[in-house]
């Protein structure tokens, strides 16, 4: 269950990165549709956070420790919204690049989460 969610979130993050990278390539700032995309990825990360905490509460143990697991869950939840706010402040293609970088960072976090959970 958790691994599937990690995979979905990671793939969604990469898609978001590609999408915003494309916008940057065409010299465009992030638009409403991009923000909806970010919202979708963020909701996925939030679901993952909740599922992760529920799994912990039911007594399951991540392979590499509970603290690291929770820290990465929080980090991956905060990642895309933070990049999104920065792209709001920077209305140029560099805002799009920032969100693309945020998507890549989230994908890396998901890979780490997979290891930490011990998939």
């Amino acid at each position, binding site marked *: 269950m958790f691994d599937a969610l990690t995979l979905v979130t990671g793939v969604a993050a990469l898609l978001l990165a590609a999408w915003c990278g494309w916008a940057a390539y065409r010299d465009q700032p992030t638009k409403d549709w991009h923000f909806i995309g970010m919202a979708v990825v963020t909701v996925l990360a939030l679901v993952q956070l909740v599922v992760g905490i529920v799994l912990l509460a039911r007594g399951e143990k991540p392979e590499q420790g509970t603290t690291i697991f929770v820290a990465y869950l929080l980090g991956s939840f905060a990642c895309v919204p933070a990049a999104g706010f920065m792209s709001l402040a*920077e209305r140029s293609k*560099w*805002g799009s690049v920032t969100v693309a970088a945020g998507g890549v*960072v989230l994908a890396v976090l998901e890979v780490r989460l997979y290891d930490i959970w011990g998939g």
Partner: protein
Amino acid sequence: MAVSEDKPTRARLISGPGILLVWLYGVMVVGAVSRSAYQIATEFDRAPLAYSLSAVAGLVYGFITYTLVRGGETARKAARVCCAAELAGVLTVGTWTMVEPSAFPDATVWSDFGMGYVFIPVLLPVSALYWLRKNARRGDAA
């Protein structure tokens, strides 16, 4: 150039590509600080040098992020010094971990030139220095 109405914006450092730098630095701050905080709290004895270095790296990243966001001439100089220090740190620690791995039983953010972090630690200061230089020239011209 420095008229009073310029004051609120204070020659912003973060516009254009700068925003990407701030973002990546922000990520590195969170990464380095949380990592070292966790490791120092739980297993400091295993690799004190490595964990202390991660903590120092985190502080340097935090300071650079702050100066980039704050902007202004003083901040720009400070950011420059810190980026140079950071670059020196990455290169030193990177070489050190290659030459004598036994000094570092566990990895730091700067081990092997930041390979575990997609080489971001070594690429960041270089691009930041470049960005600060370019920005300064534009400032002179204006």
